[in-house]
């Protein structure tokens, strides 16, 4: 084989992505900065001064942050428990976490419509046992979006954490305990710091996933709780306001890259210190 012929192996896929993914994206982003041949920031000024859009941007960030925190708070202990079980059990737990992950997001969001709906399971149970008289509005608000996001992305958090936790040497904990640390202290001083990489990978996945998800906010959020993704679609396909859709899309890309960049650089700093 000639010296550089491996480039031939890369070429088809590389050119395909360059022409059909990278190029349209660059066009979309650069197009949002131009107007009648000149460069302009006016669309961005409009976006950031319009309280309708800034509210949506802040809401999207807030919902993603809450979802990430909840997924971490629920996922960490679960992943820790899984990592301590026997290999066979662990396989079963991983399979049960992977299963929802591979199920259609439409199905998963739909299931929460059935549960949280006006005549859904939660309302039925609460009315029957007499806690409430009138059905609560559990659907089409920020609460239902967060439930949907946590449900959608927690498997990613659990799997990222299990991968890291099961590689932590159990002898370290025993060493800490034999040196007099309590179980809790051994956990905080040994296991938790070593699991931070998994926590960071999981958080990036949950956060960026929530930030860019469409199906869940569309089905569970209703018209009052729009997020960036549903607003891009609405502008592009319902209002035919393509310029605004392009601006929102660009803002979404920048926010996604910024957030994962910040979390990753934070992780690198932690690593170099530890």
């Amino acid at each position, binding site marked *: 084989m000639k010296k*550089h012929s*491996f480039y031939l*192996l*890369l070429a*088809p*896929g*590389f050119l*395909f*992505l360059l022409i*059909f*993914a*990278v190029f*349209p*994206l660059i066009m*979309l982003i650069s197009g949002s900065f131009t107007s009648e041949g000149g460069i302009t920031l006016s669309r961005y000024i409009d976006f950031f001064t319009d309280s309708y859009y800034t509210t949506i941007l802040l809401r999207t960030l807030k919902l993603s942050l809450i979802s990430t925190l909840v997924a971490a708070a629920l996922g960490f*202990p*679960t992943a820790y*428990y899984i990592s*301590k079980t026997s290999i066979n059990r662990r396989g079963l*737990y991983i*399979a*049960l976490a*992977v*299963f*929802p*992950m*591979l*199920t*259609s*997001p*439409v*199905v*998963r969001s*739909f*299931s929460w419509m*059935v*549960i949280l*709906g006006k*005549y859904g*399971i939660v309302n*039925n149970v609460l009315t029957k046992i007499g806690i409430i008289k009138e059905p609560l509005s559990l659907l089409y608000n920020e609460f239902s979006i967060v439930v949907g996001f946590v449900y959608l992305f927690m*498997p990613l958090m659990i*799997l990222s954490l*299990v991968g890291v936790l*099961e590689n932590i040497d159990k002898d370290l904990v025993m060493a800490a305990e034999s040196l007099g640390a309590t179980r809790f202290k051994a956990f905080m001083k040994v296991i938790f710091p070593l699991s931070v990489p998994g926590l960071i990978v999981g958080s990036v996945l949950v956060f*960026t996933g929530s*930030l*860019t998800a*469409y*199906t869940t906010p*569309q*089905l569970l959020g209703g018209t009052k709780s729009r997020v960036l*993704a549903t607003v*891009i*679609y609405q502008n*592009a*396909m319902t209002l035919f306001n393509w310029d605004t859709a392009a601006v929102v*899309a660009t803002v979404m*890309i920048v926010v996604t890259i910024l957030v*994962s960049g910040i979390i990753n650089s934070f992780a690198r700093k932690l690593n170099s210190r530890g």
Partner: protein
Amino acid sequence: MNKKSTGLRVFAFLVYFFLLAPLVIIFATSFGPDKSLIFPPKGFSLKWMANIFKIEMFRKTFLISMQLSIIGTIIALIMGIPAAYALSRYNFKGKNFFNSIFLSPVLIPGIVLGFSLLKYLVIYSKLPVYTSLLIGHVIIIMPYIIRVISSSLSSFDYSIEEASMSLGANKIKTFFTVVLPNIRSGVIAAFILAFINSFNNVPISLFLTGPGISTLPIQMLIHVEYNFDPTIAALSVILMAMTALLMFIIEKTLGLAYFAK
């Protein structure tokens, strides 16, 4: 186990209950006889299962989704396997750059990618909708192919390859008779993962479907927004059965533990 572990076990159990209960509820309600989704169902009926097959749009979009996902995955494998091979086999300048290009579609929000494809492939370049839909699916599939194939190549012993060539086989023959059979399970797992992700995709398809050409998830999304009957629950059960079958195959080939890597 001591007291503290019991608490942890209960916690993990509740989290799994949260993850699985909604799917169980969907499963149960799909067999109910009523027109609305009632849990627990007041009886047993296959009415809604049968109803899926009566709705032509579901039949039609199921076939389109199947076709799109299978063709898309094959195209992505044809371009992705050589690329993954080059990226894992050789060390060269710019390797990281190529690697990040191949994995980049996973970082780009699907909704943004879908919109840019509509704008620049369909509207400006006048590509047919179906072709654009296929291109979009190949793009989102690529990272899965590259990642899974690379990870199975990382455990491949390249000295076997050298042995084959020293015995006179050329590079291409070696690839097909030695390398490919050895990463077979990786290829199968990559195929399945890519297929599932393509089949379930919403954000790309959302922009590129319209009257005439639509995919199953988009059709389901439209149906859910206007009707609230157990048809979607029944359809969900069929999709879950498909997922379970494909997971079983992944378990037999690459192993589900791959997901926790």
